[in-house]
């Protein structure tokens, strides 16, 4: 038992949203990127969906025509950052030290460390996780998710908040559909059931199938920035 010693217990109504600090930092990030004329995307997915391979291919295709910078979130290694840096993109690595998501203040520090002069596109590769990054907006113009067909088509229904927080989905590894005995429509239908407005790009980062449509989308967004 707590001895309150006859003191008066006060109830204080706060009605305060948690993550306001993160939201405020995200707004600042978005403003700095906009001021620098940078179009930015926050890429999210499960581990092993092929985010980094998609990024490597995208750099190969677009680096000759635009300046691209990468912020790489990883729990503890620099493996992904080494892979994209080898392509010649300016890369800042954030090791989250076990944390399961990036947050806006940490991304803000990374942005401060970057030379944004002339950068057209910033890709933030979030930590592979379909839950934790959802609530933590980073201030990117668009949130994009990668769903690989090997994960199964039930993921949108299992992680609705993540699928609703994104406006673009890349359905990756479509070259494996025949092997898995699955149809692409199973994935697009499930995604649209949770997020009817989602723009969906079926791709295979391995064979290059569908990747041109994705590149064209990026080119258009960068041009219209």
């Amino acid at each position: 038992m707590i001895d309150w010693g006859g003191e008066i217990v006060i109830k204080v109504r706060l009605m305060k949203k948690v993550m306001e600090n993160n939201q405020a930092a995200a707004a600042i990030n978005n403003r700095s990127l906009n001021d620098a004329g940078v179009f930015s995307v926050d890429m999210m997915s499960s581990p092993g969906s092929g985010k980094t391979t998609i990024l490597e291919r995208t750099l190969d295709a677009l680096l000759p025509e635009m300046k691209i910078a990468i912020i790489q979130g990883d729990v503890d290694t620099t493996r992904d950052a080494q892979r994209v840096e080898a392509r010649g993109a300016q890369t800042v690595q954030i090791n989250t030290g076990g944390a399961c998501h990036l947050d806006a203040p940490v991304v803000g520090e990374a942005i401060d460390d970057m030379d944004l002069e002339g950068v057209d596109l910033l890709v933030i590769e979030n930590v592979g996780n379909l839950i934790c990054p959802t609530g933590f907006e980073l201030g990117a113009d668009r949130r994009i998710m990668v769903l690989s067909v090997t994960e199964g088509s039930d993921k949108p229904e299992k992680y609705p908040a993540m699928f609703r927080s994104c406006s673009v989905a890349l359905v990756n590894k479509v070259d494996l559909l025949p092997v898995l005995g699955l149809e692409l429509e199973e994935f697009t239908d499930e995604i649209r059931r949770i997020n009817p407005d989602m723009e969906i790009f079926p791709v295979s980062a391995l064979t290059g199938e569908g990747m041109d449509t994705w590149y064209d989308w990026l080119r258009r967004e960068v041009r219209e920035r």
Partner: protein
Amino acid sequence: MHEFSLVREVLDAVRESARREGIRRVSTVEMTVGSMGCVFPPALRQAFEILGSEDPMFEDATLAIEESPVRVRCGDCGWEAEGADARFLCEECGGTDVKVISGEELTIDSYEGE
């Protein structure tokens, strides 16, 4: 386990308010957690217990969580559904303008102390 960073923010906010109110010891913190907010209440409670024990102000404090189920409404015809019945394609008119009207909350509602 992003619940730890969330609880850190909760404790900071309550601490700041409590100092202003002249409250030295907090007994209860009440929060609303939406079922679509990607926050797991047991993990939140556990983080609250661990981080709270590091500060005399929160030593004896408990975290009371009100869970808010997801509720959706169709912007075209007004159809509403809750919990497991919630869909993002309207079951009445087939419309796609279905919005979440509750279930995404993550708020500190109030706290008590002396």
